[in-house]
């Protein structure tokens, strides 16, 4: 089913439960984000991108695969906006459109890496297997 960007933005807000209007543009989410440097679109920008229905850019963004789901932005946001939930919603949208899971349990062992924090893998598995 084809959706306009506006409809996709509404869907993202619905899935995530985020009210983007609550954002006061303080940037504390990006300031808290450990993956900030890896991202092309930063957590605080996610909020305004969804608000402005620039969804195509978000779907193509590499940021959605860089977010660790550590929820530091959710914890620290003074306005209770929950940017990580937005990112999660965009990820889900991509995964659903691909029509399959990105990661299966069988793939996990070969991805194990000494350097990698286990939390990363756990959250990666969680977010890619929705």
């Amino acid at each position, binding site marked *: 089913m084809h959706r306009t960007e506006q409809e996709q933005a509404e869907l993202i807000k619905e899935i995530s439960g985020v009210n983007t209007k*609550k954002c006061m543009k303080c940037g504390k989410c990006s300031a808290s984000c450990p993956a900030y440097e890896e991202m092309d679109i930063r957590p605080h920008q996610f909020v305004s991108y969804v608000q402005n229905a620039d969804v195509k850019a978000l779907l193509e963004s590499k940021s959605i695969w860089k977010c660790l789901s550590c929820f530091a932005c959710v914890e620290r946001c003074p*306005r209770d906006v929950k940017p990580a939930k937005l990112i999660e919603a965009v990820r889900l949208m991509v995964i659903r459109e691909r029509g399959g899971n990105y990661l299966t349990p069988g793939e996990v062992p070969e991805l194990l890496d000494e350097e990698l924090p286990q939390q990363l893998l756990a959250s990666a598995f969680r977010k890619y297997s929705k």
Partner: protein
Amino acid sequence: MQRIGVFVCHCGTNIAATVDVARVVEAAAKEPGVVHAEDYQYMCSEAGQLKIREAIKEKNLTGIVVCSCSPRMHENTFRQAAERAGINPYMVEIANIREHCSWIHKDIEEATEKAVILARAAIAKVTLNAPLQAGTSRVVKRALVIGGGIAGIQTALDIADAGYEVDIVEKTPSIGGRMSQLDKTFPTLDCSACILTPKMVEAAAHDKITIYTYSEVEKVSGFVGDFQVDIRKKARSVDMSKCTGCGVCQEKCPSKKTPNEFNRGLNNRSAIYTPFAQAIPNVPVIDRESCIKFKTGKCGVCAKVCQAGAIDYEQKDEIVTQNYGAIVVATGFDTIKLDKFDEYSYSTSPDVITSLELERIMNAAGPTKGHLERMSDHKAPKSMVFIQCVGSRCADKRGKSYCSKICCMYTAKHAMLIRDKYPDVEVTVFYIDVRTPGKNFDEFYRRAVEEYGVNYIKGQVGKVAEKGDKLLVQGVDLIDNKRILMETDMVVLATAIEPNPDVRKIATMLTASIDTNNFLTESHAKLRPVESPTAGIFLSGVCQGPKDIPETVAQAGAAAVKVVGLLAKDHLVTNPCVAKSDELLCNGCSSCEKVCPYGAISYEEREVNDHGIRETRRVANVNSALCQGCGACTVACPSGAMDLQGFSNRQILAEVDAICK
């Protein structure tokens, strides 16, 4: 039977755009007792009032219903108009068809139907109205100011200068409040103590002002014009009439490990102490929880060294009872606790401080004698980071929903002063918005940036972490869209302010309303900003909402004028809508006495004549001067003896019947 006139107001388009006023007139005219009904564009205007007066005379009206705005706006206007035409002012009823109807409805049909129902209810009520006579009560020509900061001091001075007695009750050992803790004041950078202490001295020397320090309000009863207040003067353990303020006791006191409240706990004080050098009164107090003598019975050094023999370990708390015509709340503020903001490492690093702590560090009488240094190793910082909006503008439970208003300016002040005195210190301010509405305020902030080279970065800081002897600040520059990882020596948090926590207790005693943030509510946000909705209670300073010193002083003066306006009256007109008990129905159960929040009901043995039977019964008696007409007793009364004049049970039920018809 009453002869009732109904007057329907258009209020321009406020009512007429949503309510078909002609239909309201038509419907009202058919109600029993109504002999006159008309509409007019502005009933509150001189011409509108004239219509009411003329109709009263021409049609011999005995009751008036005005369908208009809230009675809070114009009930008095129409009562006076009725009185001028010769009928009792309490024969006027208002049907609120604006706030309760036109403003909240969009559909003309629905709004008109509701307006008709509201008019019908008011007509039903006025049919049962009886003329009431307002009484008078005395005005005690003395005011009480709770809180001895700049707000309380200014209010007291202005009231005293008008010739009235004022008492200031201050909880701490000295007047002066938060302003006495500040180093410099924006936007002129004059020394806070230099401009505050003359006012403190003036208040102390004023023959109309009595200052109770180390004292708290304990109990309040009475009402506007005649409050009775118990003030607890806590035992100072020092005889104020003997002490010369020489300070030897404080020097010799062996107990010197109590965190110094005045310096925000950055250093320690002795158990016997005056909070600061210019304290008024310059008489120390013994903090009995820290004093060795009080804890163990041994010591007594202060008594031994005191040449004046002023130390009195036996001193007891004293209760002073005094009557006041008006009470001003000026209880001020404190900074919020930062225990929920662990990301800024405030509780773990001594080099992360609040702005109020920085004021003490910058002050010559502070813990570092005014030398800018880190509290961890007493080294001079080379770089400092200021974080704005810590706990302000928060939608979550961790902070406050409001803007604390003063932080942008004091942060610019701190940054500027540091760059001026220590030009080699790099100063960075992380901000969300810089808010500088105020005379010469934005110019001041721009000077910090343009002349003093303070680096302002847009973006809230995410985290402050300890890294060796440095602090690592993690943030973003939202303009450059760039990560910032910055090592710095000190971090200053512009911490949100909140009303003094004691204000809840005080507001409860005064039956003054407070909002969800514990700020006292003003009677009208725009038109009555310094009056509490509770008559005779006035608001001064930050207890009402965040404000800076110039605004506080202006508001303090405004509160004083309101107090003077009240105290200048010879007597007050009382509201006749008070409770009245029917002695023949009263069964003496005391239910009403128990629920009365104003202590207005007492019981007495009275001889009654019950249909020819004379006997002595225990019956309720309402003190009409104390009764505020809240109606709690009428609900509690099981025998139907208690009724509220002007709002009798019959009248209320007639309204309900009219609405349900």
